[in-house]
């Protein structure tokens, strides 16, 4: 009888010890949230990361930022470390829409919810929720303004972002869903400039040699819009060709005010980051019915309303 009691007590003790080892952040310690970001070599993503971490801390959690340096293998290491170190949620900006799926699934298997910010992974089931700019709708609005500014006719060029990036095509499709209804608007070239300012300048310089009579350039982001504008200045066409961008970068908003760029789409990285942290908080409190994708409105900035956005762009 005494032996049985000893065995029972030992078993209970073992269960208690094992249970406490498996428990993440037990006791009064706050839960930990990992903020894993594609790259911190770009100020836009720094804002995204810092805002997510700040919001997580404001909600009472520990937060740590991991820089994937645009390297999916390094991102995998961050996920493995975060899971092993007992992080309870990941606020995530993926390096690759397809390549990052496996990392999100690893976290899911470990019971760690992942909330994507700004960039998505191409799996509807992997992440708990993906909070993304409504690039398509933003470019519908820009497309409408583009047609109005062009009086429904003329030749134009489209500079695409990275062809493997979902945002590139969401923006292009939104734009064309309006512009393609006007047959007198002719797209003479559609080329990728990888979201890069210098590449956009080179690509447009080359296009202008064969098409000096274009009257507009639609760019998939603001860096390319600035590169396109530089190419037009160099070719002496800056006053004849209208440039449209997307992002809401400070230099482009300033250029809209100066009349150099016609319009852009203002994105809100802080809203995306804060929403992701809030969703994690709600998850810890028991909520499970999150939208698989949550679009964040993109607002068009043009010369009529640019004064409303000068401060927004600074922040």
């Amino acid at each position: 009888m005494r032996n049985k009691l000893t065995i029972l007590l030992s078993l209970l003790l073992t269960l208690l010890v094992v249970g406490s080892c498996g428990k993440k952040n037990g006791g009064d310690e706050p839960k930990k949230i990992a903020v894993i970001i594609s790259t911190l070599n770009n100020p836009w993503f720094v804002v995204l990361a810092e805002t997510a971490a700040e919001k997580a801390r404001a909600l009472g959690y520990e937060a740590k930022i991991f820089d994937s340096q645009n390297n999916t293998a390094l991102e995998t290491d961050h996920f493995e470390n975060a899971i092993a170190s007992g992080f309870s949620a990941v606020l995530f900006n993926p390096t690759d829409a397809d390549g990052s799926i496996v990392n999100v699934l690893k976290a899911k298997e470990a019971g760690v919810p992942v909330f994507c910010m700004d960039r998505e992974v191409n799996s509807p089931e992997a992440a708990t929720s993906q909070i993304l700019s409504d690039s398509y709708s933003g470019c519908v609005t820009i497309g409408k303004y583009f047609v109005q500014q062009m009086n429904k006719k003329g030749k134009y060029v489209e500079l695409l972002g990275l062809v493997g990036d979902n945002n590139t095509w969401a923006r292009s499709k939104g734009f064309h869903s309006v512009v393609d209804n006007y047959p007198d608007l002719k797209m003479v070239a559609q080329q990728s400039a990888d979201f890069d300012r210098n590449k956009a300048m080179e690509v447009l310089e080359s296009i202008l040699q064969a098409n000096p009579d274009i009257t507009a350039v639609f760019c998939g982001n603001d860096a390319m819009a600035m590169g396109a504008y530089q190419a037009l200045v160099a070719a002496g066409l800056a006053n004849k060709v209208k440039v449209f961008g997307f992002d809401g970068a400070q230099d482009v908003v300033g250029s809209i005010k100066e009349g150099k760029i016609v319009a852009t789409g203002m994105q809100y990285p802080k809203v995306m980051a804060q929403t992701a942290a809030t969703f994690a908080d709600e998850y810890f409190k028991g909520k499970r019915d999150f939208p698989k994708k949550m679009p964040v409105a993109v607002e068009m900035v043009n010369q009529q309303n640019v004064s409303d956005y000068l401060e927004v762009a600074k922040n």
Partner: protein
Amino acid sequence: MQKKVIKYTVALILLLVVGYNSVYIKKLSEVKAASTVGKFDAAAYAQTFWKEKLTPGLTKANNLPELLTLLKSEKENAFKNYSHALGIGNLRYFLIKGEGKITAINENDISVTLLPDSVGKDVKIATEFVYGNAVRDALGILSINDFSNTMDMNNVSAELNKKIRTEIIPPFRAQAKKGDVVAFTGAIELNQAHLRLDEIEVIPVSLKLVRD
């Protein structure tokens, strides 16, 4: 020699069997039909939404002059109680109704002065650039979880707008004249952080000329 014949015959039979099982020929129409099975049909969804939700839901439309007054005096209250959007952010949509006297028929829109005259407010009814999510979102009964991906949501907006551009606007534009009174329902988009009430553009859902 006999062995060789048997060897080649077996090889030939094997080749024929493998070849036969490697190539399938199907009618193109069957393949196309199979690829659309289970796909979201935005046009059908938009038609059902229009008939069964939006049209009956127009009884909930806000009187536009009253809404504009509320937006001036109690902006937050107006947005909180009467605006909707599937996503998050500053852009919100209101379902509205009103009457107005046509003051100009322009290439891309129709200018109206809201009635009664005491309202003293001009708005534009879009007749060319009918795009965006106003009509899809303004009623506030759709949930983002109703759609498995964002492209489906975008396509519903595109189909609703197409219906307005092709079925609602052309018969109205063909009859409308300056000085006519129009009764309208529709949706408007407003930015809650940067509110501009001097640029109201109505995306129409119904347009009816009211002549004396």
